[in-house]
């Protein structure tokens, strides 16, 4: 077994007295694609956000490529966390492009500011990644001039331009009009084919089934069941999983 890219150990996260994550253990290996599914409020997004420390764990550890986010004394040093985050790209549901920058400037910004690349070099890299996501013609457009699908593809290019080893997708297609979902999923699928290590939170069950190496079903802050897509979708072991998958795949059916 190759060494895990992400190791999560007994991760707990509470907001005030509300416990969102109740002791999660999770390893993600090189090149693996893990898809987290579950009802809203199950803690799946919070788990994803803990993987790059956008949420600090209340207890437990998150390691990336063997490096713990917390330092030896258990504290989260900002510089250390920021440095580790550069290895992890993240794509958000609401895109979060920088509105005052054009597409290409969005992709350049962190390369220049964080990676300390020259502007020329950063622009070249940015143009390459924008081409890769099919937006060569839209480089000088502002986010306000782009469709949702285009925005999300710029956001993916922006994350990729940092040359991360892991990509996180937090409901990357949930805010999109149905006809724009495909273009974003296509880009994600291409990344998968290139062997990128990825963790996705998604409501697109068919896509999850098709792309995932492993599906994790979460409910009420805990992992209920995990396994190969074919097993989990076709023969779920737990009653809760069955119920959820049935509801998502047949939303018109009456609740059991």
């Amino acid at each position, binding site marked *: 077994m190759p060494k895990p890219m992400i190791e999560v150990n007994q991760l707990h996260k509470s907001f005030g007295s509300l416990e969102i994550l109740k002791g999660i253990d999770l390893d993600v290996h090189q090149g693996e694609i893990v898809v987290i599914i579950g009802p809203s409020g199950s803690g799946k997004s919070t788990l994803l956000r803990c993987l*790059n420390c*956008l949420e600090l764990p209340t207890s437990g550890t998150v390691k990336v490529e063997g490096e713990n986010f917390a330092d030896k004394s258990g504290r989260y040093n*900002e*510089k250390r966390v*920021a*440095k580790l*985050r*550069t290895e*992890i*790209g*993240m794509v*958000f549901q*609401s*895109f*979060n*492009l*920088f*509105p*005052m920058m054009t597409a290409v400037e969005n992709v350049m*910004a*962190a390369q220049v*500011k*964080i990676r300390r690349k020259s502007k020329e070099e950063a622009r070249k890299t940015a143009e390459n990644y924008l081409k890769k996501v099919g937006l060569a013609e839209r480089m000088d457009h*502002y*986010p*306000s001039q782009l469709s949702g699908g285009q925005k999300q593809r710029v*956001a993916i290019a*922006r*994350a990729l331009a*940092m040359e991360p080893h892991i990509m996180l997708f937090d409901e990357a297609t949930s805010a999109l009009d149905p006809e724009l979902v495909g273009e974003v999923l296509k880009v994600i699928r291409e990344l998968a084919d290139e062997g990128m290590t990825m963790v996705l939170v998604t409501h697109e069950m068919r896509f999850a089934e098709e792309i995932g190496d492993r599906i994790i079903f979460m409910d009420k802050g805990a992992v209920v069941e995990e396994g190969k897509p074919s097993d989990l979708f076709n023969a779920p072991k737990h009653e809760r999983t069955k119920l959820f998958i049935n509801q998502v795949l047949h939303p018109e059916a009456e609740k059991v």
Partner: protein
Amino acid sequence: MDILSHLDFATAIKELTPELWQGLLIALEATVGGFLLAVILSVLIAVGRLSDSKVLKGILVVILEIVRGTPLLVQLVYMFYVVPLLISLVAQFFMPDYQFQLNPLFAGILGLGINYGCYLSEVVRAAILSIDKGQTEAALALGYTQRQALWSIVIPQATRQAIPVFGNYLIMMIKDTSLLAFITVNELLLRTQAYASQTFLTIESYTILAVAYLILSLPLSQVVRLLEKRLSKHA
């Protein structure tokens, strides 16, 4: 009716206008200096108030309350007459005959800058808070530190948003430079007063002064409106 027949705008315009040009230059100097200072202070105060330090926040709130609770004119007078005395008092512990003096225009710039800085800080603070949290998160996810995200992603957007409001404050400040007459800055009002008391052309002088301020601020209001339109494009 007698007064009306004696009105002499022609003379007043001819003699007062060159004076007003001189005064305008000084008023503009005060505005440019005061506003630059105000903008810098406003961002620093806003960031300070959004920081985690309770002590810093406490100090800033006290300063804000003092500045907002006293009239600008009193602050200007205090800056020009009292602050130099206080500084001299302290300095005399080390250098016996030391007398600190503040150039009136410089005192005016400091007074205006601090006063407007406090008011503008509320505008900046509100603008920073209005920027979507996702912006900071996106920056953090790319490897920015909190500070880098604040200064290179959030503040540029916040100031952009605040610019139209800033513009309105700038126009207010131009008009408020007339208060500097009270601390002997030779701007438009002081020059007009001098002219009016020499010639007794009271109605003419002050009417011309009022019109001069109008001519100055009306086009600027238009510019601010245009700016507002342009900036909202990619917000």
